[in-house]
Each structure stands twice: as structure tokens, then as C-alpha cells.
């Protein structure tokens, strides 16, 4: 049994390593397939005025004179030693940049998920409590709005309305981390988390509604009700408890996507998260920034999936038993 367990862990670790290596190769190749390089990204059309000697000097400076395979393995090898590369634009190591931006995105993701769950789960249960009734229609309207209103539109509208009408725009101030100024930080996170949370609430609402409807038709629910279990306890303990697996799956997936960076929302609200770090890296063709950051995001996604699997075991005894 222990050998089997070890085997499964080894298999999972190997799968993770393979996934990350695939991501590394893919990002490396895709970045170089995009026209331009750090020289043209930095100089723009002025790059046309470079003499061959100037061009060669800049290629040496950015390490572009090395063969691609050498560039790839040099970068990957450095990653194993904790050297994620260096951002000439920011004058900082990519590791330092990531250590600053990843927690910001993680905080935004958690707040968004909490808001999404607060909106999606109760409304989903409400909708499922009486299918095709007015409350179900309300749930459908909310989920349709969440799915169909683009984040950029909602974000821009909220920002403009709050700033112009109420003078409320904490995001116009310099960004503060939780450690620096918790109150300002939370005020700066409110609108972006609301925009993201509203969008994510929609699939959670739909998943909750479908899962609850399915569980409600199970025999054990009828039995529990016949045995006189109070309705409130029945809905929360028996119905929602057994409907949690698909809800957790959906939440885990959405959380993973959020860690990948809610680029648009981060741009509009000037939140210095990991999505913006990747975007700026792509714009400036800072290969090391993009490659290393994407790898960190991929790793975070894998870890969230792992956490989701662990949660299955916590919430569903059948998974534990198997």
C-alpha cells in the first residue's frame, strides 16, 4: 500500500514536472515567434537607424547573440538555482518582481472568489429551491449578466461612476500593500474584486443550481425529509453538503484562472499583479520576465488543482474511501 502511495506521488510529481517543462518550451517558442525583440520593443522605429555594429552591440547586451537552444537551457538551468532572470526595464530580478506581484494577485483572487461564492452559492440554492419560479428567473438573470457583461465594461463604468459622482477612486492613489496600509489596500481591492467576483459568480451559481437540483432528487433527501429533518438543516447539511464536489471543482478552476492574472481588471484599476507583469514583459519582449512568470503561474495552477483534490477528500467520504 505504501509502495503504491509512493508510486502515485511519484507519478503525480512526474506529471507535474512534464507539464511544467511543456509550458516552458511552449512559452519559449511562442515568445520568439512573436515579431520583434527587445531591441525593437525598446527603440521602436528608431531601431531602423542602427548601424550593424550598434545592432551587434545591443544583441550582445540582451543575450540575443546566443543560439536559441543555449538560451533555453541557460534560462531553465538558472531557474533551478533560483535565478529567474533579470528585468532591465525594472532594474530588478524577476524573482523579486514576482514576490511582489504574486501576493497581490493571490489577495485579489481570494477576495474575488469569496465574493463570487457569497453571490453564487446562495443565489444558486435559491434558484434551485423552486425551479421555473420568479426566484429561478432572478438567478438566471444574474448569471446571464455575469457571463455576458465584459469585465472591461463593468470595470470602466464602475470606476467612472464612482470617481465622477462620489469622488471615490482609491485606485488613483499609489498602490498600497496590506502591510503598508491595510485599509487603503482593501479599499483599492473592493472594485476589482467585485468586478471579478461578479463574473465568476455566474458559473458558480449555475453549477450550484444544477448540483442542488440533482441532489434534491436523491432518495436520501426524501428519506431525511420523511424522518423529519428540519428544512433548513436538510438544505444546508444534506443537499448542499452533497452538492459541494462540482462547486469546489468549478471554484478551483476559476481560482486557478485568477492566479493567471486578471490582466484587464488589473490594468484598469492599476493593480500591480502578476497579470500586468506578464503583459508588460510581453510588450517589452523581456523574455526572462515572461518565461519565468508564466512558469510560476503554471506551478500555482497545478498547486490549486492539488488543493482542490485534497478538498474532495475532505468534503466527500466516498473519495476518501476509494
Amino acid at each position, binding site marked *: 500500500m505504501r509502495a503504491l502511495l509512493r508510486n502515485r506521488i511519484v507519478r503525480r510529481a512526474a506529471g507535474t514536472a512534464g507539464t511544467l517543462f511543456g509550458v516552458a518550451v511552449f512559452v519559449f517558442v511562442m515568445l520568439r515567434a512573436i*515579431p520583434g525583440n527587445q531591441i525593437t520593443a525598446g527603440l521602436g522605429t528608431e531601431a531602423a537607424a542602427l548601424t550593424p555594429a550598434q545592432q551587434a552591440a545591443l544583441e550582445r547586451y540582451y543575450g540575443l547573440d546566443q543560439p536559441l537552444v543555449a538560451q533555453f537551457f541557460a534560462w531553465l538551468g538558472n531557474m533551478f538555482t533560483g535565478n529567474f532572470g533579470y528585468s532591465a526595464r525594472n532594474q530588478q530580478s524577476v524573482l523579486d518582481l514576482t*514576490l511582489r506581484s504574486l501576493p497581490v494577485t493571490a489577495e485579489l483572487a481570494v477576495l474575488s472568489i469569496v465574493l463570487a461564492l457569497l453571490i453564487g452559492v446562495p443565489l444558486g440554492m435559491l434558484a434551485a429551491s423552486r425551479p421555473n419560479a420568479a426566484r429561478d428567473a432572478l438567478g438566471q438573470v444574474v448569471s446571464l449578466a455575469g457571463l455576458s457583461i465584459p469585465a472591461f465594461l463593468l470595470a470602466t463604468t464602475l470606476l467612472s461612476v464612482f470617481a465622477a459622482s462620489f469622488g471615490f477612486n482609491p485606485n488613483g492613489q499609489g498602490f498600497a500593500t496590506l502591510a503598508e496600509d491595510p485599509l487603503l489596500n482593501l479599499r483599492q481591492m473592493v472594485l476589482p474584486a467585485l468586478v471579478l467576483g461578479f463574473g465568476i459568480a455566474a458559473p458558480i451559481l449555475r453549477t450550484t443550481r444544477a448540483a442542488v437540483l440533482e441532489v434534491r432528487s436523491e432518495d436520501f433527501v426524501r428519506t431525511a425529509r420523511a424522518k423529519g429533518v428540519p428544512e433548513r438543516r436538510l438544505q444546508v447539511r444534506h443537499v448542499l453538503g452533497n452538492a459541494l464536489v462540482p462547486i469546489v471543482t468549478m471554484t478551483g478552476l476559476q481560482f486557478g484562472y485568477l492566479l493567471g492574472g486578471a490582466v484587464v481588471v488589473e490594468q484598469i484599476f492599476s493593480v500591480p499583479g502578476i497579470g500586468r507583469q506578464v503583459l508588460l514583459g510581453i510588450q517589452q519582449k523581456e523574455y526572462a520576465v515572461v518565461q519565468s512568470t508564466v512558469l510560476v503561474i503554471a506551478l500555482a495552477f497545478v498547486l490549486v488543482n492539488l488543493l482542490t483534490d485534497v478538498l474532495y477528500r475532505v468534503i466527500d467520504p466516498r473519495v476518501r474511501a476509494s
Partner: protein
Amino acid sequence: MPRGALSAAALAATLSLALASCSSSSGSDSSGPAPGAEGTGGGKPLVVGVTSDPDTLFPWKATQFQAVNVLQNLYGTLTEFDKDLNVVPGLAESWDASEDGKTLTLKLRQGVTFADGSAFDSADVKSSLDKIMDEKTAAVARASLSSVKSVEAPDANTVVLKLSAPDAALPANLATVNMAMLSSDDTEEKLTATPNGTGPFTLGKRVPSQSITLTRNDAYWGAEKAKSPSVEFRVIPDESSIVSAMQSGNVQLAVFNDPLVAQTAEGGGTITVAKTPQLNYHVLQLNARRGELGDVNVRLAVQCAIDRKQVLDTAALGEGEVTGPNTAPAFKSDPDKRPCPTRDLAKAADYLGKAGKSGGVTIKTIVSQGEYATSVNEAQSLKAQLAEAKINLDLEVLESGAFVDRWVAADFDAAVALNGGRPDPDGSYGRYFTSDGNLNKVAGYSSDKLDKLFAEGKATTDQAARKAIYDQVAAELEDNAAWIWLFSGYTYTATTSGVQGFTPMANGSLQSLRATSVS
């Protein structure tokens, strides 16, 4: 929910909040006063909203708008431009050309120091100019010193430039931040981390991708020190979000290029927007070395088939002026003197007939998506107009990186572009339209006559005579339809109430930030 699940969720939330609280947004340097603090000379700090932070802090390689705007407040140049773009003394108090025009002697200002306290002298000027001319430095302004044979520093306050030929454009060329004077002890590596200039501000604090704060340089040589104790360039990536930040009072000044954003800002009533005509010009670049555009008659047909005012109205809400090649106030071209100053389809058909292309021609045209706000709209307007003259503009809309790649390689028949203008027409066009110009491959056109005119322009110091020469340059370019000049737009300086002293300039410079205060 089972207690275990709740605990796991709570653990995840706590962990990420703990991670967030551990994160630091400390800048790379915090030697100056904290943002928001008032300096020794009083005044309130100024916050400028920008969409991006500088991509480099090394002035000789800076071409990005945001980088140039920050660096020109940190570094000094031998000459400067005043608000009307006249060349005025900077670190050089005066300069004299020899009678044959082949020697330029500059007298340096005394008592100037760098931000690190070291003295500025002629050794720094010689070192800076020598390094800019060295190809290994890859300085972008190297070509502007092509007439300089050698730099001599006979004493601490004098610099002598020996020229291969007279160069009247040289004083203007010395005024750009790409010609910033650096200490001979400094290196590129050192300066990209810690700028060390002679400008009115010094670097206070930088938080990558978030903000860069400059603090007043109390040792600045100018008669007036900077009015604000600090200027923070705050990065707000979206222009509409900058408008919101101004409405809520968090940002006091911003410069926009998109007329639509400017209109939005003005609409609220709390922000004042001033528009300034720009030296930059919107143009349909034709590559006369490729395909059907090699025939001057085809190019002239394109010229006659375009109503520039209509392009301006449809693509840029009418915000700009139809222009000829020279956009600098002292050399401005008269657009009415070009062939077909108004749209003339009959004449366009004649030209196509002369080229033997009465059936029509197709011109592959590259357009950038996102490089500037009006590019695609301009291209579509041009396409619609030219179609009526049987000229098919085959548009290839490219992501800005791909556009730059193709433009740099001159891999296009035509390109819809927004090109930077300079106060001196030699700086604007000498590099494009002289046969040995470093951008001539991209310009796609040169002639002996243009070579001669540009050489004459450089050798002539009399302003009226130079204006006449560059009028001839403009006529030669438009008579041959080397490119199709369309219009030059405005930049929009938005300020909140209480901001005083800022003077927008036609070259987009923010050098008057030193005179700007917030009450």
C-alpha cells in the same frame, strides 16, 4: 459545509492574505523625501498620470515618450529649446562658429554639479560626445553628430568641436535628451539603476511599474529652482482611468494623445484641457523603390485622390491641421502649395493613365494596431477614398511589434504612420531623404537634388535663407509624392484646478514641469 472544508478554505485565505501582507512595494531607492512630503523650498508635490513607466533610465538609448519625459527632468544638455522651440543656452552658456563653419566653440556654464555632487566640466562633455559617437555605445543620437570629426577640451570650461562640414543644425541636435551630458566617471550600468544628471530634479524613489518620483534638485544651476518639491509620475495603464484619477483629485496633470479621451476629460467640468499642435505628423509613407510606386505618376495619383481634411475629420474628430512636410513653427510648409491641394479625381485618373495603369493599381499597406489611437481609422478612410480612384489600398493591420519589425526592415509598399517631427527640419528629414541617411532605406526615396538641398541647409546659418531652402525640400518631396503628408494632431494637457505654470510644447516635452506648481 463540513468543518474540514471550511478550515481548508480559511487556511487558503489566511495564507494568501499573509503572503500579501509580506509583500513589499519598496522602491529601488528612497534617498529623496517621501512622496507627498514637502521639500525645503516649500510647495506641494505634483502627481502626473502616465500610462507606462520608463523602459530605460539611460538617456542615450531612450526613445519611449515616458522615458524621455522623465529623463529630460533629470539630465542637462548643452543647448535647450525654449517654449517656442528656439535653441537657447543650456549647459553651454554660449557657442560660436568659425568663419568657415567647421569649428564650433562652446563655453560651458560654471558651478554646475551632477546629482552626486561632482563638478561638471569640459572633460564630461568630451567623454559624453565621444561615447555617443562610438558605435559600441549604440546611442540613438549618433547620426546627429555625423559632422563632428573630433571633440577637444582645451580648458575646463571650453569645448571645441571640429566639423567635417558646416552644420547649422548641430546646436538644435545637441538639445535632445539623447545628447544628455553624463559624468565621465559614470557607466551605462550604473546610470540605469541610479541616474546622475545636472537637471532640475533628481531621482527620489522608484517602484517598478507603479511610480517614479523625482525630487527637487536644490543645487540646480538655473536661476529658478523647481517649484514643486517633488513630481511623481504615477503609472495608471488605462487613459480613461487617469481621467477618473484626476476627477477624484489623486492626479493633477496628464498628457493625452487620443482626442476621444481628451473630450471625456473635458466633459466632467473639473478638468481643464489645453491642446497644443504637435511637430509629429500623420503620413502615408510610400516606398518608391517597390512595385508600382516606383512610377512617380502612380504616387502623384495617390496624392491627388486623397482629401486630407476628410481623413482628419473621420479618423481624428477633426482634431488637427492638414500639413505639409515641415511642421516646425519656424519652417512650416504651406499645404496649399502642393500638387492637388484639394482632392482631384480627374487629375488622379490622368496620372494613372500616364503610368499606363488606367485599370487601377493595388498597393499593399501596413497599418499598426495600437501604436497610436487613430491609425486604423486613418487607413480605412484612405482606403475608401482611394478606391474611388481605382487605387486599391490592400491593408495589412499588424500588432505594433510586428508593424515596427516590418517598418524597420522597409518591408512594405506603403505604411500608415505617425512620425516624430523635430524643431529643425534637417533633424526631421535629413536622415530620411538624403541618399546616405540612416533611415533612407525606410523612406524609399532620395534624389541628387535633395542631397544638395540638405547639404545647403546644413551649411547655411541665416534663418530666412534656411527657411527658403527647406521650402524647396518640401516642394521637391511633394512634387514627387515621396510620401503623402496628411495632418498633424494635437496633444492634450489636462490639469486639475490649482495647477499653475505648466507650458505645453509642440515637441511634447514636459520640461516646464520645473516651473509647475500646485496650490
